[in-house]
C-alpha cells in the first residue's frame, strides 16, 4: 500500500523522491520499483539514520515515556529539561540534526564544551533552539522560568502544571483554602507539616530560614494573602536552601 502511495504522488503531484528512516528502505524501494514497472520512470529514495544515543538506546523517550511536541502532552518545561539533560557524548550530533545552527557555531560550542564542560553551553543552546522552534518564545520563557524556580527564582507566572513538574520530587500536602488564605504564616507552616509546633515555626521564620514562593518571610505575624496563591491553587513553602513543600489548595 505504501508503494502505491508513491505511485499516486508521482502521478498526481510529480513527486519523485521519498524520504524516511532506515527502517523504511523496503517500502521506499518497493514504490520505486512499482513506478519503474508501470510508468517507466525513475524515482528516488533517501533514508536517514534512526537516532539513538551513544549507548544505543532509542532517542526520544524520557524515563520510558515518549516526548511529544504538543504542550498538552509534554509541557514546555519537561521538553526543555529533556534536551538540557542530553549527555556530552550525544549533544553535538543532536545539535546538527535538530537545529538549523551553522556548523561553525556548533564547532564553537564543541570547543567550549571541551574547555568548560560544567557550563553545558551546548545543551543549553540545543534546549533553547528546539524549545523555541516547537513552543515559541513564550514557551521557552516559561520553560526557563520553571528551570530557574528550582534554583530559588521567582515563581509568579508559572502555572500549576509547571509547578508540579518543577517540584515533582518535593513532598506535597493538600489543604483547604480557608485553612491557608488570610491565616497567619505560622499556622500555615504547621498545617503543611513543615514545623512540628507553632513555637518551632516562629523561631524558624524569625531566624530568616523560611521562604514563601521563594521569597523570604521573616515576620512571624505575616498573613498569607489570596494574591500570593500561584495559579489560584498552589503555594511553595521552603526552609533552608532546598527543602521544598508544595501546598495544593482545594
Amino acid at each position, binding site marked *: *500500500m505504501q508503494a502505491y502511495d508513491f505511485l499516486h504522488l508521482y502521478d498526481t503531484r510529480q513527486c519523485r523522491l*521519498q524520504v524516511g528512516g532506515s527502517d523504511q528502505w523496503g517500502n521506499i524501494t518497493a514504490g520505486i520499483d512499482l513506478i519503474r514497472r508501470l510508468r517507466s520512470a525513475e524515482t528516488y529514495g533517501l533514508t536517514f539514520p534512526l537516532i539513538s544515543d551513544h549507548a544505543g538506546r532509542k532517542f526520544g523517550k524520557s524515563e520510558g515515556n515518549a516526548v511529544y511536541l504538543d504542550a498538552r502532552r509534554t509541557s514546555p518545561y519537561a521538553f526543555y529539561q529533556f534536551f538540557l539533560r542530553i549527555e556530552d557524548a550525544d549533544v553535538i550530533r543532536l545539535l546538527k540534526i535538530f537545529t538549523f545552527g551553522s556548523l561553525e557555531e556548533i564547532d564553537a560550542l564543541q570547543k567550549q564544551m571541551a574547555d568548560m564542560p560544567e557550563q553545558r553551553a551546548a545543551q543549553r543552546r540545543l534546549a533553547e533552539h528546539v524549545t523555541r522552534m*516547537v513552543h515559541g518564545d513564550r514557551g521557552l520563557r516559561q520553560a526557563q522560568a520553571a528551570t530557574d524556580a528550582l534554583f530559588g527564582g521567582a515563581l509568579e507566572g508559572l502555572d500549576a502544571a509547571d509547578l508540579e513538574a518543577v517540584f515533582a520530587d518535593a513532598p506535597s500536602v493538600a489543604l483547604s483554602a480557608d485553612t491557608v488564605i488570610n491565616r497567619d504564616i505560622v499556622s500555615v507552616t504547621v498545617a503543611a507539616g513543615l514545623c512540628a509546633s507553632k513555637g518551632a515555626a516562629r523561631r524558624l521564620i524569625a531566624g530568616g530560614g523560611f521562604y514563601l514562593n521563594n521569597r523570604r518571610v521573616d515576620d512571624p505575624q505575616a498573613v498569607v494573602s489570596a494574591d500570593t496563591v500561584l495559579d489560584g491553587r498552589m503555594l511553595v513553602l521552603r526552609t533552608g536552601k532546598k527543602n521544598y513543600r508544595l501546598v495544593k489548595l482545594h
Partner: protein
Amino acid sequence: MKTVLDILRERGLVEAITDPALETVVRKPTVVYAGFDPSSDSLQIGNFVTIMTLAHFQRQGHPVLAIAGGATGMIGDPSGKSSERNFLSADEVEHNLIGIRENLSRFLDFDHPTAPARIINNNDWLGKFSIVDFLREAGTHFRMGAMLGRESVRTRLNSASGMSYAEFS
C-alpha cells in the same frame, strides 16, 4: 552551490540513497514526500528527524508533502512495529491529522509561494479503491517472494501473534 543532499550529509542526516543520480536531480526543485503515522494527535521527538529533513528540503526550494498514513493506520503496517497497531476509525484519523498539521506548521511553511508544504491523507485515494481494482492495479505487480523476504515481515511471521492478511497488504 551546496545542494540539499550536501547539507543533509554534513549534518548526519543521510544513511543511504537509492541512486547516485539523485545528486543531480536535487539541483532542480524536486517534490519530496515522507509518511507520518496518524495513530496519535501529537507528533513525538521520534518524528523530529523526518520533520527536520523535510524542512531542509523546503528551505532549499523543494516542495514537500507530508503523507499521513490514514488508510495504513486503519489496517496496520508491519514495519518497525512488533505487533499490529490498534485500528483507527476514519474520525480518529481526521482528528489526529488536525493535530499533526498544527505540529508540522511550526517547521514547515504551508503558505510558501513556490515550495509550499502540504499534508495529505492517503485514505483520500486508497479509500476509494475497490478490492478488485486494487488487486488488478497494484497487487499484480508485487511478487510474493520479495515481500516475504522483507526483514519486517519475517520478524512478524515468526512471532507468536503472526501477521494478518490486512496488515501484510
